[in-house]
């Protein structure tokens, strides 16, 4: 099983590194633009947020946004393409358990999230002096976020029947959730109703705890954030496994 798992992960890594111009390079450019515009040009006018200057405030959110987008994009595109060109049959006829298939794809998403997140972190370091309050919180939040969105991407790929279906969720659900999850602002500045609503958005907990790891300040209890993320991962993992085992849109 270990060899099969390693094979899927290596295949996934080779897949996105082979097309690094599409997968690794663009997020770094986009992020640098975000920092230049929102942090560098507009940041000074906005002032401090959650006790730090705006540039330092938005950096964790921007890094996490790239992790979310890339972990999701990796599993959704890779698994959908495997369905599209029928190469998923290579796995289905082999004695690889469904858990191993799922873990392999999720691991691929985590690695891409890490590579791109680290790339953005390094790119940002050229412009801003970065401080990390607690590396373990940063790594733990990264890991949970990457797992969660790799799973979400996988489920999207299972249901997707066309290329449109793999871009609808990121555009119309993921992007608004990311932007409304406190990536560019502290939820403390929102009216109470919107603050309460934000707490139903899982991205809020990720951004908050990731920011805690960088800046040492958060708007919600770290333990609550971890609990929310872990629960969501468990739910999505069970759903993804069930879909795979049932062969939904894969086996008839």
């Amino acid at each position, binding site marked *: 099983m270990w060899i099969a798992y390693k*094979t899927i992960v290596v*295949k996934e890594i*080779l897949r996105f590194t082979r097309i690094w111009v599409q997968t690794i390079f663009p997020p770094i450019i986009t992020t640098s633009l975000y920092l230049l515009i929102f942090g560098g040009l507009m940041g000074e006018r906005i002032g401090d947020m959650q006790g730090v200057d705006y540039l330092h405030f938005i950096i964790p959110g921007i890094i996490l946004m790239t992790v979310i987008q890339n972990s999701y994009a990796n599993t959704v595109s890779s698994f959908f393409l495997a369905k599209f060109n029928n190469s998923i049959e290579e796995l289905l006829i082999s004695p690889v358990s469904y858990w191993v298939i799922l873990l392999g794809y999720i691991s691929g998403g985590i690695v891409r999230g890490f590579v791109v997140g680290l790339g953005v972190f390094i790119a940002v370091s050229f412009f801003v002096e970065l401080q990390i309050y607690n590396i373990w919180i940063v790594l733990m939040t990264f890991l949970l976020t990457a797992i969660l969105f790799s799973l979400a991407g996988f489920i999207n790929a299972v249901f997707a029947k066309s290329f449109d279906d793999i871009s609808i969720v990121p555009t119309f659900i993921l992007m608004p959730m990311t932007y409304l999850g406190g990536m560019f602002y502290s939820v403390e500045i929102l009216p109470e109703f919107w603050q309460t609503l934000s707490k139903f958005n899982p991205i809020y907990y990720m951004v908050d705890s990731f920011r805690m790891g960088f800046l040492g300040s958060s708007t919600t209890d770290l333990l609550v954030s971890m609990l929310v993320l872990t629960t969501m991962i468990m739910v999505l993992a069970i759903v993804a496994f069930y879909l795979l085992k049932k062969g939904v849109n894969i086996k008839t």
Partner: protein
Amino acid sequence: MLQALSISNLTKTYANNMKALSSVNLSVEQGDFFALLGSNGAGKTTMIGIICSLLNQTSGEVLVLGKDQTKHLNEVKRMIGLMPQEFNFNPFEPVEEILVNQAGYYGIDRSSAKAQAEILLKRMELWDKRLDMAKSLSGGMKRRLMLARALIHQPKILILDEPSAGVDVEIRRSMWKFLRELNDQGMTIILTTHYLEEAESLCRNIAILDKGKIVEQTSMKKLLARVSQQVLILESTEQLPDILPALDFKIERLDAYSIQVSLNDVNISQALIALSENKIEIEHVRSAQNRLETLFLRLTSKAG
């Protein structure tokens, strides 16, 4: 003797209520070279899909070397190698990587997989293409890549779904030679094909599937022995009379110089004598139909 494959009451009904297989019973002996024939939509690919775990059956039992597919799924998967009808690899992966990855899914470590891939790619005349993306291969090369991939984990049973489609004559012959060698080494081979000549030339036993049902399962020899009717095309050097004589066998005009005769109880020399007595002199004789094709059409109710 333990059967390589034993299928009982296999039924498959798709979600749209289309019944692709209905209570199919089939058995294939170990070491056999077995042909599964059927026209398009007969249910061949569905049956193969179920045997290889790509499709779920509605009901019925599949035993592979005595192991129940539902109870010993992984063991069964290890015993089977599949070369499907449609290309089903990632076209953006290099040729060698496709084989090495497939071996990895079967738990074969990378160095052993690379060694086995080298043997197979050389045998398939694809070694020079090992670093090329699969999409750059020709149709015939892609088929050979899929054959190599089906063999990478050294299965006991090889299932080939239309292996010769799009392969030129020379490569097809060399593929047949290779398949015969594998069969001589003890590998059970199950083949579906549209080239009836391929089945006649390679296979010892045969089953014919029609509209989801097995209409015939026997040895190739016995089946061909049943073709009592011989259909021949006879060509004359002189123009044939406008009205053909009534003889003891069926006679049909094809054009001004040739006729087609269907011989049942009459042999060829009797037929030629009878024609000569009616002033029809024959210069050339040739077979009108492949024998297996004749039978196939008869069994699947498609003859004229």
